[in-house]
């Protein structure tokens, strides 16, 4: 039986056990003389949890471990029959066997065909065992629990424990995935730093990953100094924040403090539409509209503006971030207690004075946090800069020139046919790690700053 059929079956089992248990508990409670310790639904949930989760765990374990076990077994088999084979050869044969057994390729070598036959037999036996054990576990637990409902035992407490475990496991899964992502990033980066000196990467002023067109081509070694790329990223993010911070913050202040309910009901959804535009659309807006526009203005002023300027990319990125900043700030400003506003207004302060001298200082820690989150977002943003910022790594702080960013370089290094043991490809992971470290530091600063400041204002 397939994974999904099995899952559906045990869900059906557990629903049955839920209804059976709760109705049996209901009957018992009705005829009981003493006050029961839990409601019928708690007994139902308790029995549902026992019917579903152990069997589900078993199913997961079998599904993950089963094929690994079979593979290892066959590797041993192959190694026994052909002692001369090395590891790579064994892997290759195993892959062939697998492909033959699921019918994607065919072979006329009788030895391989036989192994493939054995392989599929073995696998189906494992799956049959999985089906039986999962169904057995689910049904036995379901029957035992639901036929032994004891209303004197408090199942509410046990259900509570189940919920706690469920939520805990979800949290742990989220953490583990994060750890896994970081680990893979670190692993690939370490491979890169084995090929290229760490400090040359960190402080190098020249970024030129020469991409070999053919594998036999004698390419230059390439130079991987990340500073120009990092500087480009910071420049674009800075321009974005210069655009987004005042507009976002001021619009939030307007919405939270000054706008009437009617105006607010119109402006807020409009800003949210801005947040809903896909970044790729912003990207071609930047490349096709903003960049030529800025270039034209620059030309009339007698400035030399490149067609893919940091200014265009940054400005459009800023527009993208406006709703992010404004909706976060709006929430933060709204959470300042009304009593502070009343106090200030009651002293004869105007609305603007109240906002600037009382509301904003009280909201400041939250606003700093929101601002730094927006900065991390600007730094990690990819699509706009891919389309509008360009590829050449100039070490410049002139916003009218072409710059490139970390994300753009990663995209260009990893798109298309790539070899994953090549220094150029691996350098993308180095960049990824640098970007991750950078935004992590920013987020930590945001956290520390807002905590420090809110202590002061509590």
């Amino acid at each position, binding site marked *: 039986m397939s994974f999904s059929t099995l899952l559906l079956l045990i869900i059906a089992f557990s629903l049955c056990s839920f209804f059976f248990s709760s109705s049996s508990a209901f009957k018992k409670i009705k005829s009981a003389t003493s006050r029961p310790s839990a409601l019928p639904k708690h007994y139902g949930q308790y029995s549902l949890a026992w019917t579903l989760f152990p069997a589900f765990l078993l199913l997961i374990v079998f599904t993950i471990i089963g094929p690994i076990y079979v593979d290892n077994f066959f590797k041993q088999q192959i190694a026994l029959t052909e002692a001369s084979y090395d590891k790579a050869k064994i892997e290759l044969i195993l892959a062939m066997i697998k492909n033959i057994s699921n019918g994607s390729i065919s072979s006329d070598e009788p030895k391989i065909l036989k192994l493939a036959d054995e392989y599929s037999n073995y696998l189906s036996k494992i799956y049959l065992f999985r089906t039986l054990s999962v169904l057995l576990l689910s049904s036995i637990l379901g029957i035992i629990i639901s036929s032994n409902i004891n209303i004197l035992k408090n199942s509410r407490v046990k259900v509570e424990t189940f919920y706690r475990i469920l939520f805990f496991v979800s949290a742990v899964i989220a953490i583990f995935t994060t750890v896994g992502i970081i680990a893979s990033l670190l692993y690939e980066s370490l491979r890169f730093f084995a090929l290229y000196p760490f400090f040359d990467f960190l402080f190098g002023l020249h970024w030129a990953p020469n991409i070999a067109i053919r594998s036999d081509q004698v390419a230059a070694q390439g130079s991987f100094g990340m500073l120009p790329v990092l500087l480009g990223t910071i420049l674009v993010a800075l321009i974005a924040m210069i655009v987004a911070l005042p507009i976002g913050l001021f619009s939030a202040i307007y919405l939270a403090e000054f706008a009437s309910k009617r105006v607010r009901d119109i402006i807020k959804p409009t800003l949210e539409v801005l947040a809903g535009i896909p970044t790729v659309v912003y990207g071609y807006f930047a490349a096709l509209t903003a960049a030529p526009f800025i270039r034209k203005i620059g030309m009339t002023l007698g400035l030399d503006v490149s067609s893919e300027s940091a200014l265009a990319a940054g400005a459009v990125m800023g527009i993208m971030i406006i709703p992010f900043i404004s909706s976060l700030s709006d929430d933060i400003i709204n959470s300042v207690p009304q009593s502070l506003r009343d106090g200030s207004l*009651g002293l*004869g302060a105007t609305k603007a004075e109240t906002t600037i001298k009382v509301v904003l200082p009280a909201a400041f820690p939250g606003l700093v946090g929101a601002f730094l989150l927006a900065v991390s977002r600007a730094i990690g943003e990819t699509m706009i800069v891919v389309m509008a910022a360009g590829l050449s790594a100039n070490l410049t702080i002139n916003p009218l020139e072409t710059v490139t960013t970390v994300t753009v370089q990663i995209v260009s290094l990893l798109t298309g046919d790539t070899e994953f043991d090549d220094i150029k490809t691996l350098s993308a992971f180095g960049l990824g790690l640098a970007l991750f470290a950078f935004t992590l530091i920013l987020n930590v600063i945001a956290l520390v700053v807002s905590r420090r400041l809110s202590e002061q204002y509590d």
Partner: protein
Amino acid sequence: MVDKKNNLKFKTKNVSVFYGSKQAINKISLDIEEKQITALIGPSGCGKSTFLRCLNRMNDVISNCSVNGKILLDGNNIYSDEIDPVLLRAKVGMVFQKPNPFPKSIFENIAYGPRIHGIGNNRAELTDLVHHSLEQAGLIDEVKDRLDDIATGLSGGQQQRICIARAIAVNPDVILMDEPCSALDPIATAKIEELMSSLSKSYTIIIVTHSMQQAGRVSQKTAFFHMGDLIEYGETPKIFTQPDQQKTQDYITGRFG
């Protein structure tokens, strides 16, 4: 219209307040005397706070609130177009139910109002003003060594006196107090009541209170509100000993409320 008796501070005529279509108070006419304490009492939702907030136009802050009738402060209608509510609130200060000092230093809290109104041009004048206000609020001995501490770190009673000092600092004529002691313990309450009595020598004080004992202790005049109507208004001893209205009698003897 000029009042003959010059010791009248507020004169209200047929004041009604609506929140949307719901009427909160109904045609209140009430005269409030200068440099006295007037207490507004009544059960929850009777409109006493709403009436109080009309006197410095704090109801303007609430978007769907509308006020009808006339409120004269020193003979001038405060709801006429020429009156700037911001200046009015400098003249008619307010202390709220929950102590609401700003999350700033004690000094900055007191100096906030004067700075906004351009009182106290230099640091020395401002410092004098802050000290004087804290002295009037009976707080100076407790906080004079820590004026730079955050005001929100003080106790509830101290916070409330900071709010009173803050209101005094802009030199108002009237101080409105909206249940100023309801969040405080009895000792802090006693201090505030003592403070009110001494302040009433220089300021007109109007206090909304839930506590009839408090009204009896501090006020010279008491107004009893019920369901948005002004039931009875008179000298405090008379209201508490021989009220004219049966409803007042029922309320002060605790038969409802």
